[in-house]
């Protein structure tokens, strides 16, 4: 029933209006369901539980559905058929994954979401999106394979496929942990996020930002709540992206680093594992999807009108796009946790939960990260695109559908900030938490305003790093540079032969090198020749392998 979005628009070439109706319908259907619900099913004598709704999955499903509606409104203007099919498929598979109660269903929907999100990237057809999509696909499939292996081993150990809490006590569980971690952008496994997201179209990136990573957060919360490693993984995740985000030029890439940072907060909440902390994670995921989408939407609008989101090329757009600027500022205020906006009431829970457990060092790291968020997302993104040096760029305001989507999202951000109990009522666990104490409000305002003061001091004195057209290295260097150099050296060596066999030899050699290239290089043959039908083939092969395994 809610799997319907999965299949819905596969064959429909008609449009965007249908794309909006579909998630709205799904949302209505969803809201009719009770908050505790489970559907059991027996398949070949294995107990499956394809749908399992409890407090945790309920709220994630809810926000995913809302996000699906917002994305559909935002992308209403588009005419890219592949993208229009892929986005609802992606949203639907994400929702289905969240509702999965057993590992098999989880795996199938996990893979569908990976494939459909890759399609979204490829649909963009920009100069870089083919290769970026290929790298993205490789990493997502890797995550899927780890999940599959983990599931099989887990089944061997326990004879159960139910998706419940796991402890990190067996190889199976570690594999699953890493599978989730990849999709959640754990440190060193994170770079696919910054690599791929900026290469999707304006609407594509908004869709991408909402689902995959939060899906991983949900899975981690379900399976590994209270795992201590997550505390430190999360802490690192909040801290390191900030540095990268400050020096990054492409503003959508800045937002991708910022997404990584927000995920860190959620991961820390999972690591603590108390009902309060898990509430914080769920609340933060809810708010983050909204304000991240808002920020990506505003940057997407800029991309749509101007053609770039590179800070070095932007500036002074507030005059031409006042509404977009205003929405962007609302998103920036939300992510910085300014009081009266959504981030304040959700991040506050997590910080409080950390403090309650006495983890003072962790708490300081999170506080540090909170100040940092203001620096890149809160100030940099709106300032350098809409204000700062006016380059004389003039354009029309964003299209009406984008404004509508942004408006609704912005209203939600403010609404949650002003009336947090509305959100708190939706959370999985009951709790007593009051974000608007004098203490909390004033100290947060101090933190933010003084960080802002720091910005002003730097900028006015010319110490703030300039926005330059450049590329910054990150952990993807390890698999992009060395392997390519090896491959090109190999190619060169073979091309230096001078006999009449040269052509034949280099062709064979090229094939050999390409096979090495295939899964690792940015310009592999696979990227050139891939089509949607080949993807369907791969999916069906993967699924039949899964079935085969279960027979064995």
């Amino acid at each position: 029933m809610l799997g319907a979005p999965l299949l819905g628009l596969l064959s429909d070439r008609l449009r965007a209006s249908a794309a909006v109706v579909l998630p709205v319908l799904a949302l209505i259907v969803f809201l009719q369901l009770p908050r505790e619900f489970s559907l059991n099913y027996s398949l070949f004598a294995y107990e499956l539980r394809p749908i399992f709704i409890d407090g945790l999955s309920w709220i994630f499903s809810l926000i995913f559905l809302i996000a699906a509606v917002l994305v559909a409104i935002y992308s209403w203007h588009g005419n890219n058929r592949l993208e229009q099919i892929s986005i609802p498929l992606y949203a639907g598979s994400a929702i289905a994954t969240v509702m999965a109660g057993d590992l098999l269903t989880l795996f199938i929907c996990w893979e569908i979401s990976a494939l459909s999100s890759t399609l979204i990237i490829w649909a963009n057809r920009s100069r870089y999106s083919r290769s970026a999509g290929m790298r993205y696909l490789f990493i997502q499939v890797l995550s899927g394979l780890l999940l599959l292996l983990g599931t099989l081993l887990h089944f061997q150990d326990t004879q159960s496929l139910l998706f419940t809490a796991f402890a990190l006590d067996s190889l199976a569980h570690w594999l699953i942990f890493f599978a989730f971690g990849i999709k959640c952008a754990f440190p060193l496994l994170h770079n696919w996020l910054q690599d791929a997201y900026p290469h999707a179209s304006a609407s594509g990136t908004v869709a991408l930002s909402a689902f995959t990573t939060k899906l991983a957060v949900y899975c981690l919360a379900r399976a590994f709540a209270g795992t201590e490693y997550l505390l430190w993984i999360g802490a690192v995740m909040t801290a390191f992206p900030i540095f990268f985000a400050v020096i990054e030029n492409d503003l959508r890439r800045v937002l991708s680093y910022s997404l990584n940072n927000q995920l860190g907060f959620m991961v820390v909440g999972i690591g603590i594992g108390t009902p309060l902390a898990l509430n914080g994670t769920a609340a933060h995921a809810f708010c983050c999807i909204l304000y991240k989408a808002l920020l990506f939407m505003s940057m997407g609008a800029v991309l749509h009108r101007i053609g770039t989101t590179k800070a070095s090329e932007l500036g002074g757009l507030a005059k031409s796009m006042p509404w977009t600027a205003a929405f962007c500022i609302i998103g920036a205020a939300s992510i910085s946790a300014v009081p009266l906006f959504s981030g304040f009431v959700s991040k506050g829970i997590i910080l409080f939960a950390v403090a309650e457990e006495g983890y003072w060092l962790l708490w300081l790291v999170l506080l540090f990260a909170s100040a940092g968020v203001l620096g890149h997302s809160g100030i940099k993104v709106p300032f350098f695109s809409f204000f700062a040096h006016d380059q004389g760029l003039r354009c029309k305001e964003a299209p009406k559908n984008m404004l509508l989507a942004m408006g609704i999202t912005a209203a939600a951000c403010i609404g949650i900030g002003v009336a947090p109990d509305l959100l708190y009522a939706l959370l999985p666990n009951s709790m007593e938490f009051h974000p608007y104490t004098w203490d909390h409000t004033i100290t947060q305002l101090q933190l933010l305003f003084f960080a802002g003061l720091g910005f002003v001091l730097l900028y006015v004195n010319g110490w703030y790093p300039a926005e330059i057209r450049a590329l910054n290295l990150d952990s993807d260097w390890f698999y992009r540079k060395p392997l390519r150099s090896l491959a090109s050296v190999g190619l060169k060596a073979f091309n230096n032969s001078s006999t009449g066999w040269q052509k034949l030899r280099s062709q064979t050699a090229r094939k050999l090198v390409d096979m090495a290239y295939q899964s690792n290089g940015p310009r592999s043959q696979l990227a050139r020749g891939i089509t949607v039908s080949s993807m369907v083939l791969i999916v069906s092969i993967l699924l039949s392998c899964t079935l085969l395994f279960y027979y064995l």
Partner: protein
Amino acid sequence: MPAKSKSVKTLIIGLYIICAALLLVEFFYHRHGHFDFELWFGFYAGFGLLAYLFIVLSATQLRKWLQRSEDYYD
């Protein structure tokens, strides 16, 4: 560096005033906190400022190692 128009200057002065006000407010209400260091005068203010400065200045240094031209991977 941007041209410093009058409105920008007003904004900056406004910022200074708000910051000063936020510090003064500390004297007027009873502070609670989980940790001892939270209760130092101006802790959050100072932490925010220092954290921000640290991040931006060290990121600028980090840039020296990490920066490449845009077509580095091509």
